[in-house]
Structure formats: C-alpha cells, structure tokens
C-alpha cells in the first residue's frame, strides 16, 4: 500500500488475571482498506478492539493511531428512549446563535443524512421504535459522521435480516471508496470474502496469520482459526458425531402450530425417543423462539405442546415436570448462577426431588453431583468450586448435568457448542450422540451447518418463523438445507 498506515500495532500484549489475552499481536491498517479480523470465541478479538479504541491499555508493545476511530458493536449501543436524531448527533448537536441546540436543524439534517443509509423513519421518534437493522444503520451513520478515519465493526450483521445486510455492505463499500479504513469482525465467510481486502487471524491471543484475504482458500482460513490441519478437517469432518440413531416410531414430543407473533407462526415439530432433530435457519428465523415456546418460556398466541400424547400447561415449571429440559443459548445470562458452586448449579432444577418437606439433603446432592462430574468429565478442583471460575466448556457441561439430573425425556439444546473450545466441543457432541442412543429425544439448534448435518437424524428448516421444509436421510446435505433457507431470500425479492 502506498499510503501511511492509519493504525499500526506492533508486538502488543495484554494479560488479565494471569491469562494472556493478547500475545505479541501485530496489525497494520491503511486508508481505504477493509481488514477482516477473525478468530474463534476467546481468540482475543474483543480485547484487541478494546486496546485499539483505548478502553484497555496494553501491557507491552506499541500502537500508533493516525486518525479518529469509531466503533459499532454487535449490540446496538445507542439510547433507545432518545430520538433517532438525538442519538445521531449526541455530542455534536447543531447550535443556534445563543448556543442552544437547534432541534429543527438537527432533525432536518438527520433525516437528510439517514436517507443515504436507506432509512426514512421519523427521526423525532424514539430510536427504540425502529427495527434492529435500522438501529444498527443509525449506529453506523453516527460512527461515520463523527469524522472517523477508521471504523471498527464488531459483528455488525449478526442480528440483521438479509435485506438489511445488503444495505449495510453497500454502505461499507461506500466508506471504503471514501478512503475510510475498516476493521470488520464477522463469522460469516460469505461477507468476509465479499468485502474484505486483508485478514488477520487470531488464535489463543496470538496473531497466526496476516495477509490478503482472497489468496487464502476458505478451508485454509478455517484451519488457521481452529488450529487444525486442512487434512484433518477434510478427513474427519469438523464434528465428533457418530452414526444416525434408530429412533422409536411414536413421537414423545409433539409441538403443534406454535405461534407467537411476530417471531414464530404455526411451527410444528415432533421428536421421537432416541432421535436428534436439528433446527436450521438463519438467525432470527425463530429457532430459539421455537425452543422457548416448547419449554413454556415464551407467551403463545396459539399452539399446543404434547409430551407422550398429553398436553403440557404453558409454563416452564410444568414443562420441566413433564420431562422437557432446555439448555439456553446464552450461558452467562440464562444458564449459570455465577455465585453458586458447581454442586448447587447442577442440582438446581432437581432440588425439590432431592429434598424432603422442603429441607435439602446434602448426601443425595453429593451422590448425584459426583456421578455427573465423572460421567461428563467436568474439570473442577472440587464440586464446591464457584461455577464462574470454570471455562466455558466446563460451564456448559455443568448446565447439561443440571438438566440430565432432572431425568428429562426431551432435551432442547440451543447452540450447545457455541463459544467453547474445540476439545470440549467434541466432547459435548459425543455426549449428545450418547444421550440419543440411550433413548432421549433431542432437539439441536446450531448455526453451524456441519454440526446439524452430522448430528441430526432429521432437520426442520425454519424461515421467517415458519417451517420451510423437513429434510431426512439422503436429503441431509448442505445444498438441500441452503436451498430451503435461500427460498426466503428469493421470495423476499419477488414480493418487493
């Protein structure tokens, strides 16, 4: 590149509580460059971004910033109760002669500006009334209009609809043409290869690759991220699932016409004992909502859930008692109770069963906890260790144990392997396999297509909150799934 770099990072290290989050990381960014920053969860991407934006001070190394940096995050970081225009101009409001905020001018300028980002909503209404995609666009507009030379985008498309993604990528392209440098963090290969010029791959806090992206084959990029050789991936696949299962014929779970507008609309799912049913679909297609509807955590407009032919009242307690368990997607906010021990986290849901007249029995607890710690190979110094001190993978196993000790008949798993290291991932996958073989009915939600194709006996593909197709046997291929999902995009295009 001919120009001076706008950001130059050399040999940066950062340690948190003895753990090396960044280890001798380099990164160079030039004007107008779109730079992909990739890595698995915990590879150090967030830490690097925070070091770049000055939120964290590095322990060692050198950073040269040659311009203003703006950041937009996965979660829209704006103020929902304030108006769109107020959010856009917060901190740089146009003033009148006596120095007060000129609201009329602010609103006019905001409306004008947002038009170029494809937003025509009323700028004086609260930001929270906009769709998430539109909010993300406002965040982007705000970042760019702050005269930024560098825009860091941390998974900006993860909660957007396909149409919104298109608009966003167009805007990114415009920025690139205007000479603004962009660091683009995403897990979506298609997006990365479409817009990015260069890539930095982080693994375990180390910079394992930097260079032009297009010269790097996808499989090579994946292997750099995962730290496994290309050969190994091709030979063994990327998952640890075994063969298909032989399922019973009578379904143990029948969910009919699950409807909770606007998120899901008439979803039917049946699972037989010993069967793993995958839920495929894009983010926002209603996968998590379907699981939450089954467990009774989502208020329904319509629909019934039957376990072994008997209707289940719509609340979590009744569903749990009927034998349904759900491993939530977000371990931190919906799974672990951080201040409690591993033992207490495991027995939590089964507590009434391990008590007499409301008084808990420590002996019964210890016995059951011991069993599951051994069986799931949970690495703890003692069952009394605080669960917050465990690694992500071990926390996930604790949560699995929590559900298994309620002796469920149906297990709903929402992204069970997200954000845990490769080794733990394989263990969890093998465990799912084993549980199904023992006769449990499993519903598996995953954004990783390979995990679904390898792990599930049958796939239910969701699209816009409705079932777009069911695939079985020979149909369980990448092409079929993509076709079922992609129909959405085409329909969408037709109808507009």
């Amino acid at each position, binding site marked *: 590149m001919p120009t001076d770099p706008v950001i130059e990072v050399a040999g940066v290290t950062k340690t948190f509580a003895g753990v090396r989050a960044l280890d001798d990381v380099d990164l160079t960014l030039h004007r107008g460059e779109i730079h992909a920053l990739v890595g698995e969860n915990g590879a150090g991407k967030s830490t690097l971004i925070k070091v770049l934006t000055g939120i964290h001070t590095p322990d060692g190394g050198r950073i040269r910033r040659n311009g203003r940096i703006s950041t937009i995050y996965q979660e829209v970081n704006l103020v929902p109760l304030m108006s769109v225009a107020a959010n856009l101009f917060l901190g740089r409001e146009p003033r009148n002669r006596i120095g007060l905020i000129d609201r009329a001018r602010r609103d006019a300028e905001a409306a004008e500006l947002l038009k170029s980002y494809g937003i025509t909503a009323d700028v004086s209404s609260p930001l929270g009334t906009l769709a998430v995609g539109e909010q993300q666009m406002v965040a982007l507009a705000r970042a760019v209009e702050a005269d930024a030379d560098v825009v860091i985008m941390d998974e900006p498309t993860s909660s957007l609809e396909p149409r919104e993604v298109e608009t966003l990528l167009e805007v990114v392209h415009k920025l690139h043409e205007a000479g603004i440098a962009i660091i683009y963090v995403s897990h979506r290969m298609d997006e990365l290869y479409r817009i990015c010029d260069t890539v930095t791959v982080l693994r375990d806090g180390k910079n394992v690759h930097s260079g032009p992206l297009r010269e790097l084959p996808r499989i090579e990029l994946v292997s750099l991220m995962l730290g496994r050789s290309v050969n190994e991936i091709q030979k063994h696949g990327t998952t640890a699932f075994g063969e298909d299962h032989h399922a019973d014929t009578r379904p143990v779970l029948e969910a009919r016409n699950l409807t909770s507008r606007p998120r899901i609309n008439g979803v039917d799912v049946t699972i037989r004992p010993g069967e793993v049913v995958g839920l495929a679909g894009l983010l926002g297609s209603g996968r998590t909502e379907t699981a939450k509807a089954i467990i009774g955590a989502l208020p329904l407009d319509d629909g019934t859930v039957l376990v072994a032919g008997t209707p289940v009242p719509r609340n979590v307690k009744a569903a749990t008692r009927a034998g349904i368990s759900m491993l939530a997607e977000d371990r931190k*906010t919906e799974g672990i109770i951080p201040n409690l021990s591993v033992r*207490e986290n495991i027995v939590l849901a089964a507590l009434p069963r391990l008590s007499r007249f409301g008084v808990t029995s420590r002996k019964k607890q210890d016995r059951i906890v011991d069993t599951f710690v051994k069986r799931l190979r949970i690495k703890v110094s003692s069952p009394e260790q605080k669960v917050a001190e465990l690694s992500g993978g071990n926390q996930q196993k604790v949560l699995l144990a*929590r559900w298994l000790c309620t002796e469920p008949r149906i297990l709903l798993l929402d992204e069970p392997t997200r954000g845990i290291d490769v080794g733990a991932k394989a263990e969890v996958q093998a465990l799912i396999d084993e549980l199904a073989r023992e006769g449990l009915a499993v519903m598996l939600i995953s954004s990783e297509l390979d995990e679904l194709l390898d792990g599930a006996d049958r796939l239910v593909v969701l699209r816009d909150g409705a079932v777009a197709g069911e695939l079985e046997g020979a149909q369980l291929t990448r092409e079929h799934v993509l076709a079922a999902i992609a129909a959405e995009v085409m329909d969408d295009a037709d109808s507009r």
Partner: protein
Amino acid sequence: MTLTAARRRWLQDNGVYVAVGALLLFNALFTANFMTLGNFTTQLVQAAPVLIVALGMALVIGTEGVDLSVGAVMALAAAIIPLYLGAGPVPAILMALVAGLAAGAFNGFLVARVGIQPIVATLALLVGGRGLALVIANGQLVPLHDPAFLALGTDDVLGIPISVLIAGLLALTIAGLTSRTTFGRQLVAVGGNRRAATLAGLPVNRVLVGVYAICGVLAAVAGVLATSRLAASDPADMGLLMELSAITAVVVGGTPLTGGKVRVLGTVMGVVLMQLVRATLIKHNLPDSIAQMIQAAIIVAAVYVARERR
C-alpha cells in the same frame, strides 16, 4: 491487582467480625461499666427490632431487591395494635402480623408479577404506608395498658428478655431457611441470575412474593415488639429510617446489594456492630448529631468496601 481484590473480598467477608472485636476491646479498655451483663442485655434489647427487620431485609437483598417500606410497615403494625387490643393481645398481634404479611405480599406482587423495580415498588408503600398508619391512629400516640402485651417488652425467660429471645430464634430460623431448604437455595439462585432461574423451572414469582411477604411479617414483628417496649402505639415515629438501619446492617454484614448471597450471621453481627457504635458514642457523651454523622460515614464505608467493581 489480584492481591488487593482478594484482600477486599476478605474484608468484605470478615470485616464485620474484626470491627465488632475491635470495638469490644476498645470499650473493655476505655469505657467504664461496659463489659457488664446488664449493659449487654440493654444493648441487645435495643437491637432486637432492628435485627428482626434486618433478617427480612437480608433475604430481600439476596434476591437482588430492596424493601424501603419496612419502617412504614412497622408503623402500620403499631397503629393496628390498639385497635384489637381490647380483644386480647393474641388477636391484636395476629392482626398486626397479617397487615405486615399483606403489605409484604403486595410488594412482592408488584416486583414479581407486575415487574416493577424493587426500589420503585416499595417506595409507594414508604410514601403512603406511614400516612395510612397515622390515618388509622388519627395521628395520635396511644398509651397501652394491657399487662400481657406489655410483658412482651419487659419480661424475660431465664434472664433473657423475650424480645431478644424472639430475635435469636428468628435468626436461627432464617439461617436454616436460607442454607437448608429448597426455598432458601432457590431464593439465592433467583438473586444470582433471575433469567437462568426461570429457565431452570424454578418458581421465581412464588419465591419473590414469599421473600417480600416474609420481610413484611418480620417488619410487623419488629413493630409489635417495639410498641410493647414503648408501652404505646406511636405510628408517627415508629420505625423512622428503619430501612436505612436494616440495609446498613445487612451490607455491613457482608451481603452484597447485587444479590445472590445471604449472610445471616453477618447480618446479626452487622446489627450488633451498629448498636455497639451507637452505645460507645453515647457512653462517651457524644451528642446525637455527631453520632448520626459517624453512622452515615460507617454506612458509606461499608457499602464502599462491599461494592461490586465495574
């Protein structure tokens, strides 16, 4: 970094015991007639109502909540006593406890079912509750004469004043409740991570309503005992700023305001500590004004030590 964090956690967990020990030592050396049975009995009798309220508050704080209405509930209980004392002490006390139960359950309903922040939900009762108590009592202080009722505040069993005995028994009960029952463990789980507790199939709403109801009943018990000791129903002053004393004791005792943990013994010691501070200041003839300012400083210091880091 890690060393100071560990040190702070130690201070958070054990600071209250160290402080109580230090204060006792100070008084043993410098205060005449402090280390006597008579003085300790007096101190415990004075501390008993605060302790009873603080026990309920500890449970509420354990669920990541707070109950600002405890003082108002004490006033309500005080106002109700004379209305039913004609029918005997037992009906009067029962009616006062029922009022506390209703007030607490109402708070719990607002927090659990309607989904209002605890501070906000209990604020309404703080604003209106004492007014209601005064309306019930016509704004009057009513002297009480029922000997059986007054005995509650004056008599003792084996040398232990009845109110202290009740406070002690309640402390043991609450300690057992939190550590040994499903309700207690579910309470802590709800405070630690409410969404996770919901998804784990825990009866979150029932736990919350139960906790606020218990807190209301305990506040009413404290109101009954304090009224008995005063030998008068005084809704205007009964339990004024009790919410502050109770929250202070709980926090000083090492229960974090962020929930997920209940320290019953710590709460007891928190109450003892604040009582000792007050007694020490009085014994050394420091005026009320100075005593209040020192208490304010202790509250800030305790919360400062116990605060969660960003």
